[in-house]
C-alpha cells in the first residue's frame, strides 16, 4: 500500500526574502523531513497549465506556503484545483518586516536566514503531520 501523499505548493516569490525562505523550507520538507509523504508542486508550471500538477492537487490534499499576505500560492490553488487543505503565511510566523526584506538571492543568505528556513519547515511539517493523522 502506498504511503499517504500531501502536496506542498510554495510561492517562490522573487521580490522579497519570504519567497526564498518559503521555497527552501518546502524543499527541506520534501528532501529530508518528510520525503515519503510530501510531493512539491511547481507553482509556475501549475499556473501555466501543467496537467500533472493540477490533477494531483485535485486528488490529494494540498498545503499552500506563501511569503506574504498576497497569498499567491493559496489563491492559485483555489482557482485551478478547487480548495487548499491548509495554508501557511510566513509573515505570520516570521514577521512582516522580515519577509519583505530585499535580500533574496541564495548568495546573500546568512545563518540567521537558514534558522528561519528551519522554523518555517517545522511549521509545514506540523501541518503535514496533521493531515497524515486524519
Amino acid at each position, binding site marked *: 500500500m502506498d504511503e499517504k*501523499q500531501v*502536496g506542498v505548493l510554495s510561492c517562490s516569490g522573487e521580490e522579497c526574502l519570504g519567497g526564498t525562505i518559503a521555497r527552501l523550507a518546502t524543499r527541506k520538507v520534501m528532501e529530508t523531513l518528510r520525503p515519503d509523504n510530501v*510531493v512539491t*508542486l511547481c507553482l509556475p508550471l501549475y499556473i501555466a497549465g501543467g*496537467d*500533472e*500538477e493540477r*490533477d*494531483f492537487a485535485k486528488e490529494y490534499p494540498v498545503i499552500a506556503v506563501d511569503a506574504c499576505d498576497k497569498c499567491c500560492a493559496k489563491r492559485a490553488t483555489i482557482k485551478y484545483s478547487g480548495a487548499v487543505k491548509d495554508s501557511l503565511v510566513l509573515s505570520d510566523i516570521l514577521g512582516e518586516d522580515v519577509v519583505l526584506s530585499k535580500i533574496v538571492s541564495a548568495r546573500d543568505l546568512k545563518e540567521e536566514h537558514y534558522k528561519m528556513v528551519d522554523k518555517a519547515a517545522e511549521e509545514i511539517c506540523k501541518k503535514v503531520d496533521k493531515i497524515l493523522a486524519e
Partner: protein
Amino acid sequence: MNKEYAVLPCNGLDKCAGCVSKEVAVILSENSESEIICPVLFHTSDARYNKIAQEKPLLVIDGCATRCASKLAAEKNLKIAEKINVTEEAKANHITLGKGLQMGEEEMKLAKIIVDKLTQVQKAADTEDAIAFPASLTYEVYKKDKFVFRLPKEEGFYFSENDVWAYVVGNKARIGVTDFVQKSLSDIMFFTPPAIGNQIEQFEDAGNIESAKAVFEIISPVSGTILAINEKLMEAPELINQNPYEQGWIAEMELSDFESDKELLLTFDGYFEVLKRKVDEFHVKH
C-alpha cells in the same frame, strides 16, 4: 551538389582510426567546398577557425570512443551539425582496421564509404515519414504521485524490456523510447542519432539520449536498416519529454526479420506490467 562542411577531425596520430579521420577530412576538402579545421591549431588559437565554423555546418569526425574531436567542439561551444565515429563505422561495415598507422586498402575503402555516406546524408533524410503513423494515439496511464506515465494502446506497437517501442507497418517500423525513459532521465538535452543507412541487429544500439542525470543507450527492439531519423530532435530534444510516442520518435527502419524479433518483444498488456513495476522500483530508489 555535394554538401559542404566545416570538418573537424580528431586527427589522432597514434591510432589507425585517427588516421582514417584525417583521410576523410582531406577527401572531403578536395571533393567539395568543405574546409578543414585543424584540431591542434584550433586548440591553441580558435580565432583562426571561428569564421569557418560559423559559416558552414560543423562535421565532427572522431576516431575512437574517447571522442576528442566532439569534446573539443563542446569545449569551444560549437554547434555540431553532423557527427561520425570511424571505429563505429568500421564495425558497421565489417572492416577490421589495421594495427599500423599507414592507410592500407581496407582503410582507404572505409574512408571512401564514410565520405559517400556523408555526402548522401541529405538525400536519405528527405525520406522522412516513410511509414503511415496514426494521427493520434489513445493511452492507458499509470500514475505515481503527481507523475503520469502513458502507454499507447494501438495495435502495431511492440515494446522491449529495454523500454524502447517499435510501431510496425508492413516491413517498416518507427522506433522510440517509452515514457519511463523520458521521465527517469528528466530534461533531455542531447540526441545522438543512429547513422542513416546503418544496418543494425535486434538489441544493437540505435543512438543515445542524454540529460543532466544520465545517458540512455537506445537499444533497438528490431533488426533492420535505418531509413530516417527524427531531424527535429537535433534542435529540440525536449520533444522526447513532451511525447516520446508522437513528435518525439527516434528513427524509422526497414525491417529485416521481424517475425524472429517479435519473439522477444511485448505487446501493450505485457509491457504495461513491466512499466508499472519499473516505475514502482524507480520511485522507491529515488
